């Protein structure tokens, strides 16, 4: 029951975040908001990459090496083939294999 309530709370909060800008700025978008809308996505994607890697410890073994290799492979594959699906599958498979070998 608690889980159902928490899921509803997550769903409603997420919806609020997605709908509010349309409700507030939908009629007339201020130039500053349009500017933010244009430049923010790139910065936010960068933030998300860092967020995903936040718990990697470079001081302790394996020193974030699996993340660096797999992440590098994703970027290289993306730059080469421009196919996100291939890049993601390759990187994830590499990462899982490395964890398996190390662990």
């Amino acid at each position: 029951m608690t889980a159902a309530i928490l899921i509803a709370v997550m769903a409603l909060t997420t919806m609020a975040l997605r709908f509010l800008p349309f409700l507030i700025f939908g009629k007339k978008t201020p130039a500053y908001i349009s500017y933010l809308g244009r430049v923010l996505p790139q910065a936010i994607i960068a933030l998300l990459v860092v967020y995903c890697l936040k718990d990697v410890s470079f001081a302790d073994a394996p020193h974030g090496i699996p993340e660096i290799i797999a992440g590098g492979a994703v970027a290289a594959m993306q730059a080469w083939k421009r196919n996100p699906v291939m890049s993601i599958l390759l990187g994830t498979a590499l990462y899982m294999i490395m964890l398996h070998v190390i662990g």
Partner: protein
Amino acid sequence: MKPSINWIMISTMSNRQVLSKAFYRSLPVMAGYIVLGTGFGILLRNAGYGVVWAFAMSCFIFAGSMQYVGISLIAGGAGMITTILTTIMVNARHIFYSISMIDKYKGAGKYKPYMIFALTDETYSLLVDDKGPSEETLNKYRFFVSMFNQCYWIIGSVIGSLLGAVLPFSTAGIEFSMTALFIASFTEQWLTSKDHSSAVTGLVCTVLCLIVCGPDNFLIPSMLLITLVLTLLRAREEKKK
């Protein structure tokens, strides 16, 4: 009568064409969402919540990273306030996706509510610069792309939930698919844009806040710092003009 029959035929044909164009456009997301969704389904099952929960979360929340974070909230029995604040932190970027779609989604009519609801990172990255097959079908096309993407996500999470119990090999590391997804988006955006100041701002500010505030409290400071730096960059550019 003939012209009207013709008109109907053209209209249904183009409907199907819009659908197939949207399907084709959504293909790059298909495997990614099925993999990510499967990872989510497996983790949720490991936390003790089966297929109905996976299905419900993917239907009603439909925000990838939030659903991953949500697993630990549910499993840990988090409180209401914690859940709301965590959702705001993890999903705050959606405010910015919505902001950049305000002008583009104008006039989307009946398609608009669902398109806003389903505006994920991936749907956003597919649709932000997409002109669609034609101007008059653009919103229908966007609606279908959004819907296909959610279908993949739901299918993936259900598969993961069902498979999680029977998979013969260890699924450790499957969560890296989310990291990989963002690295791929970052690389793609970097390659397609000339001005990297926003990407660099995002990277530098976030790493800085991570070092200063630690891994548990850096999201909100990062977002504020990013917004501040981008605002200053705009002010500087205006001055140059």
